[in-house]
């Protein structure tokens, strides 16, 4: 089989829409174009029926009831709705929220905004493997705690948090539990009742559905979660999210959820096999490379590796026919290396040297071989021109060096 370049290995960023999903969506752009809120003619009924089918498909993927699915514009909105919605609704009960330092910015920045409005937020640290400590979580809980928001799987390192254990703690203490499950849902089994999750953010485009649509799972009983809306208007989605429903995308989201549920057992096995193969091959070819975060508690399709003594952006430049992403500062506008990797205590130098691989539905073994071989040759070349590698080989302990950092 020949390889088509460039190779896409950045499935955590987004995924292509599955052709079966596109097919399901198409009629809803043209002949079935009705507004799902039009109650008095067949165009509206047809659209509403399609939305309700999709709602059931999404609910089935996570073991929920269809009535517990609120469609949104995507997971960023879902995170905002969950956190701000609970904060406002339960303000009389308390003003304390617990989250974690490696959360997605949609959670962290939402919490930061609430802090300015008088809420108190605890950002739990993570351990070296990327997971929070349950003891630290328990210790952080107080009388005023109204919400725990901890992601299911991290978008950079793919590490799975102990969601079931967190859910049990939250339930015991009577605190609502939200999880940003964007990277996990459709990839690993996720059941809202087994995990005792009260709210979960979902995104369609991370699971071979279209961009611009997502959902928030909102538990309806035991307990019934109440949310203040953050978008006001016509009272769609049981008042929790006004705005005309994006029917074609919702239909696609539903189809993507149905496919994910059906294909997950086989697909996750295939992808973890390829991921382990990539990891083994790189370790065989190169010394001093380190996997960031737990390999045991990890999404099947994620690998995040630091290639010591090589800077991430120069590495990406050398593998420019492979689409991956780096935790290096230079790849973003912020000039700060990945806060997720820093939180693991890896050291900034290793954060600068990291590459995130996201495998997906169309990743082949040939592609994995190509990527591993290419990386091996580029890392070798860059190490040959790395003063750090030279010094390390001379036995100099880089951590004790006095570096000249002024002005940088």
């Amino acid at each position, binding site marked *: 089989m020949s390889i088509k370049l460039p190779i896409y290995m950045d499935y955590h960023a987004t995924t292509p829409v599955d052709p079966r999903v596109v097919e399901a969506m198409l009629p809803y752009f043209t002949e079935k174009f009705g507004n799902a809120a039009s109650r008095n003619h067949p165009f509206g009924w047809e659209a509403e029926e399609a939305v309700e089918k999709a709602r059931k498909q999404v609910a089935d993927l996570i073991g929920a009831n269809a009535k517990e699915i609120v469609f949104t514009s995507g997971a960023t909105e879902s995170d905002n709705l969950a956190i701000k919605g609970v904060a406002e609704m339960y303000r009389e009960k308390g003003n304390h929220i617990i989250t974690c330092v490696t959360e997605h910015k949609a959670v962290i920045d939402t919490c930061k905004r609430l802090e300015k409005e008088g809420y108190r937020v605890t950002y739990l640290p993570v351990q070296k493997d990327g997971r929070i400590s349950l003891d630290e979580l328990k210790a952080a809980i107080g009388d005023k705690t109204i919400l725990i928001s901890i992601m299911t799987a991290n978008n950079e390192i793919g590490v799975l948090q102990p969601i079931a254990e967190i859910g049990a703690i939250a339930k015991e203490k009577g605190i609502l539990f939200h999880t940003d499950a964007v990277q996990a849902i459709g990839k690993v089994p996720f059941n809202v009742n087994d995990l005792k999750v009260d709210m979960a953010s979902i995104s369609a485009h991370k699971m071979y559905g279209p961009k611009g649509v997502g959902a928030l799972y909102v538990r309806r009983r035991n307990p019934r979660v109440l949310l203040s809306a953050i978008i006001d208007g016509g009272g769609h989605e049981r008042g929790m999210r006004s705005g005309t429903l994006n029917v074609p995308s919702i239909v696609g989201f539903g189809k993507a959820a149905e496919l994910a549920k059906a294909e997950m057992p086989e697909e996750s096995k295939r992808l973890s096999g390829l991921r382990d193969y990539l990891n083994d091959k790189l370790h065989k070819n190169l010394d001093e490379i380190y996997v960031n975060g737990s390999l045991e508690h990890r999404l099947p399709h994620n690998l995040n590796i630091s290639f010591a*003594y*090589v*800077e*991430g*952006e*120069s590495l990406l*430049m*050398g593998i420019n026919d492979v689409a991956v992403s780096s935790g*290096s*500062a*230079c*790849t973003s*506008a912020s*000039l700060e*290396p990945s806060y997720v990797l820093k939180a693991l205590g890896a*050291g*900034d*130098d290793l954060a*600068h040297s990291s590459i995130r691989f996201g495998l997906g539905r169309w990743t082949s073994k040939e592609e994995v071989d190509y990527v591993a071989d290419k990386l091996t040759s580029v890392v070798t070349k860059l190490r*040959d*021109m*790395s*003063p*750090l*590698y*030279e010094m390390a080989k001379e036995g100099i302990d*880089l951590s004790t*060096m*006095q*570096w*000249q*950092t002024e*002005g*940088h």
Partner: protein
Amino acid sequence: MAYSDKVIDHYENPRNVGSLPKDDANVGTGLVGAPECGDVMKLQVKVNPQTGVIDDAKFKTFGCGSAIASSSLATEWLKGKTVDQALAIKNTDIVNELSLPPVKIHCSVLAEDAIKAAIADYKKKQGAEGKTVEKAAQPTA
């Protein structure tokens, strides 16, 4: 991020990668930057003591493509220059030659710092003639 053709050329075919004997009295070594900032440059010059002309220059860089290109270009420019001419190289010359975008200007600053540090090390060695210079490559804090 789009790189200029010249940056890509230096990255693909870096000039003068390598190391000169750092204990040689005629070799000056500059080591600037820090791993946690994502850039470390080692730049070395070998000066002909009779003429004061830089005969050879080598570099090794840990950093992004622009940092590699800046130091590669610097070694090209250094060869054949006198020590004083070398000190006249400005980071803006590197920015212009490589068409570096604003976010990459620090790479050129680092290259200028590396040139100055290498020449300062050479001058220090010449001043300390006959004495053993320890840890020439050790950067000052």
